[in-house]
């Protein structure tokens, strides 16, 4: 979240800066929680793909609302990301790969062997513009998060993740339906209507009996879920012919209230002469930083 002129238009963007959130996506979790109250009474929470950390900030505020509560010593928030994160109060940050068993062990250590009540992931890959590939990579990210989740979520726990409602989203709904009591597609008001982004809220974790999830660096996501019967394609002795995979449509809920700020609307009440706020956390170094420098120096001109 940089210091751009964009914040003069986007109300959530500006509000996030005013309230000290590292990204406007903080409001998405706030609005989801307002609807589902899934953070009521939770003790152990894991935030996956957490950088820059706005969801962890919300979790921290929400779990430690009452600073004097005796239960506070029990509460634990773990934020995991491959990228480094600036520290957040009451949050243990782990720079680690969510697909690696070591990460699971580390979290279980922090939880002293007890399982988590709530796991969330607001992660998204960089999009290429190839819709099918982008959607596949996003689903792999969700499944990677789900792998870890099945290893550390208690029965009845909640899993929340960002999804893109694209071509094969109904296949994901169908798969998640095997693992949770209730699967809802929720769209917070702070998420733009024009974007495909939504959140999958999976309530009441119910792993299949006799299925023991086991993370292994050398097994693929597919192999991991083999035997839990969520209807994914597996590799046999011959490549399969074409068949329709099971699909289902999840219940849709709009949250944040239809009267709250509309992220699609244009608001005029931010005075244009109001100075841009400094970003709460400076933007990270993009991989194309060197290319930008060369461009600025006029070194990327045509032959």
């Amino acid at each position, binding site marked *: 979240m940089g210091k751009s002129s964009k914040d003069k238009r986007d109300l959530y963007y500006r509000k996030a800066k005013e309230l000290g959130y590292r990204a406007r996506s903080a409001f998405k979790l706030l609005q989801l929680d307002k609807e589902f109250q899934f953070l009521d009474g939770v003790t152990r929470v894991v935030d996956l793909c957490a950088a820059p950390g706005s969801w962890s900030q919300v979790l921290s505020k929400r779990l430690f609302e009452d600073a004097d509560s005796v239960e506070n010593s029990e509460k634990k928030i773990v934020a995991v990301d491959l990228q480094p994160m600036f520290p957040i109060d009451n949050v243990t940050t782990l720079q680690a790969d969510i697909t690696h068993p070591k990460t699971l062990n580390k979290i279980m250590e922090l939880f002293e062997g007890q399982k988590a009540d709530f796991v969330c992931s607001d992660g998204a890959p960089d999009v290429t513009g190839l819709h099918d590939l982008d959607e596949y990579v996003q689903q792999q990210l969700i499944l990677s998060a789900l792998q870890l989740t099945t290893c550390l979520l208690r029965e009845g726990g909640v899993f929340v993740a960002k999804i893109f*409602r694209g*071509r094969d989203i109904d296949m994901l709904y169908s798969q998640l339906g095997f693992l949770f009591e209730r699967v809802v597609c929720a769209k917070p008001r702070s998420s733009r209507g024009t974007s495909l982004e939504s959140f999958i809220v999976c309530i009441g974790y119910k792993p299949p009996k006799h299925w023991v999830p086991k993370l292994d660096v050398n097994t*693929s996501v597919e192999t991991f879920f083999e035997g839990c019967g969520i209807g994914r394609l597996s590799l046999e002795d011959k490549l399969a012919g074409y068949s329709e995979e099971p699909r289902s449509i999840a219940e*849709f809920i709009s949250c944040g209230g239809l009267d709250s700020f*509309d992220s699609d609307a244009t608001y005029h009440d931010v005075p244009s002469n109001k100075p841009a706020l400094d970003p709460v956390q400076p933007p990270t170094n993009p*991989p194309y930083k060197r*290319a930008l420098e060369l461009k600025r120096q006029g070194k990327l001109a045509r032959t």
Partner: protein
Amino acid sequence: MALLSELSHYGPSICVKFVREKVLAGYGPFVHVYDSKNGQLLNVVRIFHINKVHGISVKNETIVIYGGKSVCVVKLLALMEKKDVSSDEKRCHEWIIDAVFHADDKRILILTSYNQVITCGYDGSIESVTGILGEKAILYSGSIRVLSKNEIYVNAGTVLEGIIIWDLIKEKTLLKLTGHEGSIFSVKTSDNGKLIASCSDDRSIKLWNFEDGRLLSTAWGHTARIWDLQFICDNKRIASVSEDSTCRIWRILETSELVLEETYNVHLIKSSWGVDVNEEKLVAATCGNDGKVVLTNLNQDGTMRQSLGSGLSSELAVRDMELGETEIIKGAFWLEFGIVVVTSMGRILKYSNSNSEWSAITEEPRFISFSVMTGIQSQGLILIWSSSGELLLMRFSQNGELIQRKNLSIRSMSKIMNCLLVLSGSDLMIAIESPNSRDPFMCVKLDPKTLDKTMQLSWPKPLKFVSTCLAVLDEKLVVGSRFSSVAVFDMACPNNEPVVWRNLTPGDAISSISFVECTSDEKSLFSVTNRDGFYAFVLLDFKKKSFSVLHNNRVSKGFLEGAFYNESGDYITYGFRSSLFYVFNETKQQEIATEVCGGAHRLWKFFPNLENDVSIFLYVRAKKLHVKKFSGLRTIVLNTGIHGREIRDLTLINKLNFKGLYLLCTGSEDTTVKLNLLDSKTGSIKTVWTQRKHTSGLQRCKFFGSNFMISSGAREELFLWEVNTSMNSNPYIRMLASLPTSSDSPDLRIMDFDFLGFEHFNDFLLATAYSDSAIKVWRYKQKCSKFELLVSGHYKDCCLLNIKFTMFDGKLHLIVSATDGMLILWDLNIVYSSLYERLISGSGAESLPTQSLPEFVSRISVHKAGVRAIDVKALSSKQVRIFSGGDDNALAMTDFKIIEGNHYACEVICRNQSASASTITSVGLFQNGQTLATTSVDQKVQFYNVSENELNIVGKRATTVADTGCLAALELEERAMILIGGMGLSVWNYEY
């Protein structure tokens, strides 16, 4: 269910592959087969049920095609002859990154996104699955290089951990290359197994030594992500394609340094996805997000073969022209035999192509220091003139002999500023202008054979007039000028004052003017270009001394020096852009040629459309004369594609057609509006014009009335366009009026609009709905081409999504949908009736005061989130039905009605909460309102039978168009054409 069939599809093409002289291109689940020799589309064949084709590998007559989790092995003959081979589709458990043939021609190797290789037979029987322990990293890219039976290397480009090169046979990691930042998008090993080339998010290309993994060099040049690259020219060059929509050729020096050799602007706006090079012909095929498939001749100058020579030289050899120390070239002209040049020393020289030699023709002291040269190619004629009024005409034979010369002296003018030479029918004319406003504007007619003066005419020079270009038609001199003016001098009536038309286009100097066609009522259509980048088609009526602009537009960037229709009817523009001279096919939106000449400020001449599809560009740079020969064959467009980004709306109506083809307008996120022609039999779409008026992504475009179109977008942009289909050359479209804006907020979008005409009057009502919840109603005053604000107000502060006028209970109402899930109804009859009364009473010219929007009369909550799309059907004079689709996946039918005592009642008649798996983005009634079509972002199109209380699904089909956002139905006899827009465009046939 009615019979549904897909007629055509336009959209991104992700991969392209040469099979000898055939070109295979992936289009969604289809493969197109083209003949690269003549550019013909030979066949379209379905490969997969739903998945898109991402890659193609070839070995002799066998082809392996993959995309998503699907793979298909097929014979070339089947791709040439069959329409559908999807029964052979095989499915892998993971995303396929690459699929190639094994060395033995019996098996294929499939690389998955989890860095595993599946070895299987053509029938899909799996022999082995190979991976490297601990290297399961997810891949964005990768390739398998089969050097021999025992040497098979996997090049894996990971998302986070750089490049892993591993040996498939030994099952062992060979190299880990970690120099890039960000995801790797392509990595290839050269076919001699010596080099590795890679590209990534960091926008660089890196060359590595296969032996030891040493980084040999890094090259920069692309301005966005690089998607694909390939070794070419015996591993001495690399071709790359990028998100910056260019294809670039890099030379590998002996030192292993990479040097950028050529940049080809092959695609529009965003992303050139794939490249393949025919090594024998040195032709590159590229494909892009815009759906274009383009062939580029890399060896135009024949220098590509001399791979270590001087590189791609742009000049023909123009040697040994000896100029004195202070002598410079003042004029140059290209004739059939070669070049004629005049210098500042008054020397006239010629260059002959046949012996590549310069020779002096004459020395003329009167042309010392100042002279200008022009000529007429077809006549072998050169004109040199000086400011003192000395004119010299010279004629050359085809082999370069000077066969005629003629001197002319103009004494009646104090000084000469411009001489324009033109041949019209049997007349040769020179228009002569002085900088002195008291001097006349003069025209000398010559006999084209003898070059004798036959007539001399003069007119008083118009005010604010500086001639720049000339066309002659039927005794009329049509002269372009600065101040965007055109003057007509009638040679038949030399006593008549010239007619001057001002402000034909925006900008200053008219840079070219050329005749296009005559109408039956004796009007003449001219193509006019303005140096500042604008062009127009102007219909001149010499009799009535009036003109009308039929078409106006601007080029995408740079200066415009001229334009013409080529033999295929494509409009070709040329001019300068930064340091380049460009030639651009405006119809196909394709750069044809460029030359780095240093920019516009120099002596130059362009000779387009010579024999054999050749054009010549002469220019002087650093005192030297350069000659660039463009072959029309440098660039061949196999598929023109459509927009470079998402189509946001499309519109077509029955009554608007041109030579039997329907006019189709498409508005896109790429900020352009395209006017296309649709063939209702084949579904083929040909773009005629790409209008660049909007500065932001489009929201809506709709045809209105007999020949109007309206488009809207962000920055409160709304334009009224007029379409003309009465010409023979093309349909034309011009911007007629724009809507006044209220703020400078770049985010304020006009989300939707509707219009309502009045019988017998040209004025109409326009309603606009904004992203800041504003609702406005305007009157369009045809007389002054202006919009007048009648009603203004806000609903709440949420974004509005749709707006529709409806006559209901005999009164004008407005239906609006918003992101709060509501349908809202306003009674606006007072506005309507007061305006109508004025029009009837003949006091329509007066302005009406702006009223504030009244309170809405009724509203109902129908959706749990934004109401994305609505369509409206009047059930009776007192009941109106709204079909709506929402962000909440729901489809609903809602009635508003008037009950006793002028009360409004509303009711949701039916609602299917899970009508689709994702946002419903458009709904449209057709077949007299009996059938409703919907599109949703999960790439589904559904058809419903509309009954009194229900919507019954009668059909559901997947569409290839991603980001599915809009639809239109064209009702024909016994059938409808359904057009689906988004990231691409599909045309379906729906038989009743």
